[in-house]
């Protein structure tokens, strides 16, 4: 009985916190004021070419950050687990820092630390640096938990005894087992970057969330519509990544990928 009541409270809280704001945003985006409801704000969005560039910019930044996470974070976590488990504490600490350092302090620190070259700090892709830092906790957790559950040391020894060197062990044993965690890390990173406002706004880069904020000042209904559209786009992106991930893991030893060499 208590369990059932708790569930009801939990679902009610979930509804109030997550679903209700979405519903209200949808209603607001469809509202014509005294004239009832209609898709005017969504139609208006289609004619706003000025939003496409920020959207494309945010998507590129998200992909660039995901690439950085996969390129640097994954090998680092694997290496620490395999060869230097004592350094894990250091990674744990680094993964907590984004939670305790406010966005504005992060930007201030970066501005002092990195003053050039101009092509780097003047480019929107400079944001990849703070975004990598902001996405670190989510990506690290996903990858670290997966590796911890894997008993990597034992699998490495098993692979070595069967003739596989470190490279093949990582490619043929570690990575396939990390695939769900990598998808998770990528999704988390993508979502964090797509929704990041503070850093981009302070550094005066026109990303998608910054644009939504600007639109909201003059066209609140369009801003609400934009929020809903970006929300749906994010979900579609996540769904695509999930589907791609699922199809890629169907078989491993097919012998058709050149893996037999």
């Amino acid at each position, binding site marked *: 009985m208590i369990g059932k009541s708790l569930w009801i409270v939990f679902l009610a809280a979930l509804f109030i916190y997550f679903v209700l704001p979405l519903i209200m945003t949808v209603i607001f985006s469809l509202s014509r004021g005294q004239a009832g409801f209609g898709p005017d704000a969504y139609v208006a969005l289609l004619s706003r070419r000025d939003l496409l560039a920020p959207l494309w910019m945010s998507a590129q930044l998200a992909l660039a950050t995901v690439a950085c996470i996969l390129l640097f974070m994954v090998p680092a976590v694997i290496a620490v687990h395999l060869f230097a488990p004592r350094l894990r504490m250091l990674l744990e600490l680094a993964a907590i820092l984004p939670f305790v350092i406010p966005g504005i302090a992060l930007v201030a620190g970066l501005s002092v630390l990195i003053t050039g070259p101009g092509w780097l700090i003047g480019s929107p892709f400079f944001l990849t640096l703070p975004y990598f830092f902001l996405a670190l906790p989510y990506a690290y957790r996903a990858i670290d938990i997966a590796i911890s559950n*894997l*008993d990597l040391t*034992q*699998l490495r*020894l*098993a*692979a*070595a*005894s*069967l*003739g*596989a*060197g470190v490279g*093949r062990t990582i490619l*043929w*044993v570690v990575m*396939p*087992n990390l*695939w769900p965690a990598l998808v998770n890390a990528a999704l988390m990173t993508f979502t964090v970057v797509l929704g990041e406002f503070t850093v981009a706004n302070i550094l005066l880069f026109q990303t998608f969330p910054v644009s939504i904020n600007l639109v909201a000042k003059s066209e609140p209904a369009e801003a609400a519509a934009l929020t809903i559209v970006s929300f749906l786009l994010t979900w579609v992106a996540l769904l695509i990544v999930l589907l791609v991930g699922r199809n890629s*893991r169907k078989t*491993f*030893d*097919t*012998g*058709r990928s050149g*893996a*037999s*060499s």
Partner: protein
Amino acid sequence: MTMAFESINYTYPGSGTGVHDLSMAIGPGELVALIGASGSGKTTALKLLAGFTQPQSGLIRIGDKDVTGVTAEERRLGVVFQNYALFPHLCAWENVAFPLRVRGVPHAIRRAQAIQMLERVGMGARIGSMPHMLSGGQQQRVALARALVFDPKGLLLDEPLSALDASLRVEMRDEILRVQRQSGIATLLVTHDQEEALSIADRVAVMREGRIVQIGTPRVLYDTPVDAYVAGFVGQSNLWPGTVEREGLVGTPVGPIACVTGTRIRGDAVIVFVRPEWIEPLARPPRAEVAGEIAGETLSDRFLGPIRRIDLAVGTGMVRLETHLRTPVSAVRIPPERVRLLPPLE
């Protein structure tokens, strides 16, 4: 092919544990078991042979080649791990085919060879099963097939049965022995289970503090242990500290024990060693004129299926005996010819 340690030394950084001056050879087709308490160095010895750890001094040979310093992937030794270490993303045949894939064997051939090996270990019906769908025993069979499929020069078994339940352990023990005999491959088995070691090994090596205390056939180790540590580690034992009173008699907490004292003289400290099943139970009071007959009071009498294990309080000590007789026991006879004298503990 022979696998051999020659004066191997390895000490873990920051501790004195490891292996010290380890020398031992495992002949072609031979199964040698390494047993010992936790921290005795048996797993370290296996890691050194496998190439997972490199020795600080000494040589490791496989066949007539010195492989010291050669990496694990180049040693070509099959290893079966305690927790199987199957790759969770690969099905049974893919796991078994992995070492063939590493060696560039074409897909169709490696699949056929993997299936053939799985059939050999009784897993022909589960070739497509993922590791999480298999029981512990089945996973161990797959691990064994994977360790043998690439025709390794030797087989290393690291506590392969310790994660299995008792009945399955016996079944798998026989299975490992059967496959090992079929393969005719030099095998090192590391285990803390002395029964497992005695039942399948050609020779058993007992390790203590990184050194081999005794190596020999299970029968030799059981009947003639070199010291009280080996006697206590291999099977059940009565071990009483004693002093030679005169030729043929040793004083112990359970009274004077008649035995062959050999070159020992009066006052020499010894450990008196008798296996519980060597002691004869008596349903009558002991006769004073018969050497080795002593009376005792039953402390415990446990039924263990085919045998009973009885602990008798005698003097200030205890005598343990094992018998298949169902009659009450009020005294025992310790046959002097079965009593062994071991050096006292340092």
